[in-house]
């Protein structure tokens, strides 16, 4: 089975007009045509799973995932009930829903599945699935939008979803049911009078669409809070669907985007946008906010003083699930030392502490020699991508790409502490504990980072490293004349 992935993403509007009254306004018709085109694109992608993150399904107790295999009812919108009713009968992938729920909890999220006859599926999900999957050919899953969740929680929600997509080898399409500007006219209007509520809203929408068209999804995510303040009714916390969609696409800015339609529905900014994971070849990743693998936020309200125990997550979640991800914290291992000081030593608090008596680096003449650098994080000693084994030595799943990225970041911090830059790196020796498993992933990250600098490189397979990591680099830098 090949590794699963997100093969496409769509942004779609939530209002029922595109289903019930597309011909009452040319803009609504254009949105409906765009929906129909998107449905064909999804079929052409040979997707086998649709994942809907709906902003019109708010939740309080963590995130909820629809797990009724065949929810059926008749949906009537609370505002636009006079447009008519939308009967629905959906094909939900309950197995995926339960696996995602478990993956959420393994990453520290509060999560649960819902499977109740008569559960009121929200208007955004009903519209999206009715139009994007008209014959129910593709199984779907729907997740709520937690009203208190912020960026880290929403990002981790996407990562746990990706865990399951990968482990099940799915060809998934990610869908956010959402408005851009969501300010509607507060009075009733004739369909022919519809337009974007204000020029300001329209200008912001155009800017968002420009970014999406350029595949700069992470930039839209980073602007979420600003967008929310500028053009969103303050009924929810932040413009969060873009956090989810960006994380579903690896928090990238080099995607390929296309706006299929942009129109108003009762004043709100509504767009159908396709985001293709194919690299556009342009766009740099400007990543200002922390990447986060596990949610460790405020979840102990009921039992004040109780903190999430990562070790418990590890033992309860991991041993029962081959798909689950490891905890981030590395809580055991060799003693940590303060880096030693000697002539030419270069040490920094922004690199992980050594596991013996040695400095982070040492200058000799115009050369800088780094001690072996791994992915451990300064301060927390956590391992991005997870450790390779637990405290009992039992193997664990881990992400070699995340570990390699973290190694490069640590190298950069030490090099910059010495007053040099990464383009002065001249030679690297890399140690991998599992060449067969990890070389490809490591090599990919290398090509994106140090490979662009051009140092010589030697990669060796070794039996073990002192801490439960999979990769370490020994680096030599030429400091110039």
């Amino acid at each position: 089975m090949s590794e699963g992935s997100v093969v496409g993403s769509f942004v779609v509007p939530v209002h029922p007009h595109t289903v019930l009254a597309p011909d009452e306004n040319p803009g609504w018709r254009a949105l409906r045509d765009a929906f129909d085109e998107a449905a064909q694109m999804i079929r052409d992608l040979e997707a086998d799973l649709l994942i809907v993150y709906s902003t019109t399904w708010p939740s309080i107790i963590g995130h909820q995932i629809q797990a009724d295999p065949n929810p059926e009812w008749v949906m009537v919108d609370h505002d636009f009930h006079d447009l008519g009713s939308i009967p629905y009968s959906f094909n939900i992938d309950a197995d995926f829903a339960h696996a995602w729920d478990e993956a959420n909890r393994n990453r520290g999220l509060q999560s649960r599945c819902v499977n109740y006859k008569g559960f009121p599926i929200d208007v955004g999900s009903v519209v999206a699935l009715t139009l994007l999957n008209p014959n129910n050919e593709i199984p779907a899953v729907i997740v709520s939008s937690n009203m208190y969740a912020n960026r880290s929680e929403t990002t981790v929600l996407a990562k746990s979803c990706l865990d399951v997509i990968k482990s099940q080898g799915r060809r998934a399409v990610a869908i956010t049911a959402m408005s851009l500007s969501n300010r509607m006219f507060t009075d009733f209007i004739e369909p022919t009078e519809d337009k974007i509520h204000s020029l300001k809203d329209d200008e912001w929408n155009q800017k968002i669409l420009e970014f999406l068209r350029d595949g700069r999804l992470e930039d839209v995510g980073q602007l979420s809070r600003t967008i929310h303040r500028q053009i969103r009714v303050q009924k929810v916390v932040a413009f969060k669907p873009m956090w989810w969609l960006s994380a579903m696409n690896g928090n990238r800015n080099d995607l390929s985007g296309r706006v299929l339609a942009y129109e108003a529905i009762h004043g709100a900014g509504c767009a159908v946008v396709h985001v293709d994971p194919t690299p556009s070849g342009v766009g740099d990743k400007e990543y200002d906010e922390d990447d986060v693998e596990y949610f460790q936020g405020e979840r102990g309200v009921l039992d004040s003083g109780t903190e999430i125990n990562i070790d418990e997550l590890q033992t309860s979640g991991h041993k029962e699930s081959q798909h689950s991800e490891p905890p981030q914290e590395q809580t055991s291992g060799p003693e940590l030392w303060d880096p030693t000081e000697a002539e030419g030593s270069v040490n920094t608090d922004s690199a992980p502490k050594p596991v013996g008596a040695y400095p982070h680096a040492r200058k000799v003449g115009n050369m800088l020699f780094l001690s072996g650098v791994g992915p451990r994080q300064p301060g927390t000693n956590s391992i991005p991508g997870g450790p390779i084994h637990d405290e009992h030595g039992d193997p664990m799943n881990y992400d070699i790409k995340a570990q390699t990225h973290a190694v490069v970041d640590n190298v950069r911090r030490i090099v910059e502490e010495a007053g040099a830059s990464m383009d002065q790196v001249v030679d690297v020796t890399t140690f991998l504990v599992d060449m067969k498993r990890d070389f490809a992933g490591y090599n990919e990250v290398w090509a994106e980072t140090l490979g662009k600098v051009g140092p010589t490189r030697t990669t060796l397979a070794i039996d073990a490293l002192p801490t439960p990591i999979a990769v370490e680099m020994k680096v030599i830098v030429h400091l110039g004349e």
Partner: protein
Amino acid sequence: MGKGRIVAGCIAPHPPHLVYAENPPQNEPVAEGGWEQLRWGYERLRASLADKEYDAIVLLSPHWQTYVGTHFLGLPHFEGLSVDPVFPNLFRYHYDMNVDVELSKAIHDEAEAAGLPVKMMENPDFRVDYGTITTGHLFNPDWDKPIVVISSNRSTAYYSVEVMQEIMIELGKVTRKAIEASGKKVVVLASNSLSHRHFTTESEVPEDMSKEHITSHAMHLWDMRIIEYMRSGQSQRILDEMPEFTEQAIAESDGGGLSWLLSTLGVPDYPAILHGYGTIIGTGNAVVEWPCHAHEVSGQ
């Protein structure tokens, strides 16, 4: 036809936990009890009005959220299954209710004449929101009175608490005017909590009362401050402090129910009766009655 009047006005919160804990036959999940302080508060409210005659209930629910105007249920009968989208594990209730369409339309028409955007909801497939069902059940478990249901216009989210209050005070005035013109005796219910910051976790047994408390001291202070104004007949101060209360206590008054209620009652200066206070998943809830029947001015 004599002049209609308001028999009582009440804050009647709607967390589905209260129905769940009571185990009525209409609700599918089964509980071991819980939230007794509030449920007994509802008992006292029902007892307080047991010997008072009234023809209809008028209720404003913050869970029928409308962004375009204020809407009114406009068909005589609704029945179906109401599943709470947030707490479906607690609330799956088979409802069967009658609407006083005549009174509903009368309030609608008065509001329209006052310039408010309004609409009658006449789609028979419409599913009545769980806030209406919960408050409706707790106030009148027999469902033997027709009800008028008014949606919650989200003007706080669109504009500000001040704009919401302007709209709701106007809506309250026309509600009162329509009730008086109808010749009917009516009980008015605002279905909302006070402070409204939830826990984001749920205990293994949802009705485990050892886990129940207010989310923060600040929320408690605000709840007590507002309740004290109610108990001492200082309705105007509630309206005056509504912006701060709504913002700082994340209060469910953002839906306009409390402002509408006080306006409908003519901003009463007599004490309200506190029948019960308790927290539900961290939010503050009070069952409060303004006994209008005891404060009627002769000739009014």
